[in-house]
């Protein structure tokens, strides 16, 4: 653990460990928001191509019925976005806990665990979206290294 913390200090340069993780969490969140935008664009395109308004008028039962299978098809994408958002929230709030607890508190392990889980959630999101044919960016290395440096599970 001491060697891991020393590595984090080296990696973080002038910033604290909390700032290193906050930076990584912010970048991961921006990346997730970008992925969510791509989900929105792709689902909208799917709806336009599958259920065009010239064949399925707005307000018609036919349009509603046409869109039902699309809602099922894209539900896993929304679920994965929600899971990733929640995991990122836990990571950030773990940082707040560490900040309040201050030096000496044994909170690095939970922090590393929260970071690793957020990263895994995003990787699961990428897998779900790839199965739907949506190409999204991978997490930048600075995010992964923040978790790895503390030895997250």
């Amino acid at each position: 653990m001491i060697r891991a913390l020393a590595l984090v200090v080296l990696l973080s340069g002038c910033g604290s460990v909390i700032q290193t993780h906050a930076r990584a969490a912010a970048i991961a969140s921006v990346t997730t928001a970008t992925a969510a935008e791509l989900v929105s664009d792709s689902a909208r395109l799917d709806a336009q191509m599958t259920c065009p308004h010239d064949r399925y008028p707005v307000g018609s039962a036919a349009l509603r019925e046409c869109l039902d299978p699309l809602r099922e098809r894209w539900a896993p994408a929304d679920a994965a976005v929600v899971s990733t958002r929640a995991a990122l929230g836990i990571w950030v709030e773990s940082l707040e806990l560490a900040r309040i607890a201050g030096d000496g508190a044994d909170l690095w392990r939970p922090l590393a665990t929260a970071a690793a889980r957020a990263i895994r959630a995003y990787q699961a999101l990428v897998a779900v979206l790839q199965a739907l044919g949506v190409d999204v960016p991978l997490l930048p290395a600075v995010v992964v290294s923040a978790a790895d440096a503390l030895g997250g599970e």
Partner: protein
Amino acid sequence: MGTEAVVMMLLKAISELVPGLLKAMTGTYSDEQAIERARAAYRAIPTSPAASAIDAHEKGEP
């Protein structure tokens, strides 16, 4: 949307974040401020992007 567009969107987002990140690296931001920025970033993630887009199409919204 192609890979190039994805990369451009991500670069745009990061370029907006970089000035703040540089300030954080030089210690200008406090831990509390850094956490608040991360909190704002994750709260900005939409919760049902696909469902909202499909709903918009159903309503005929642009």
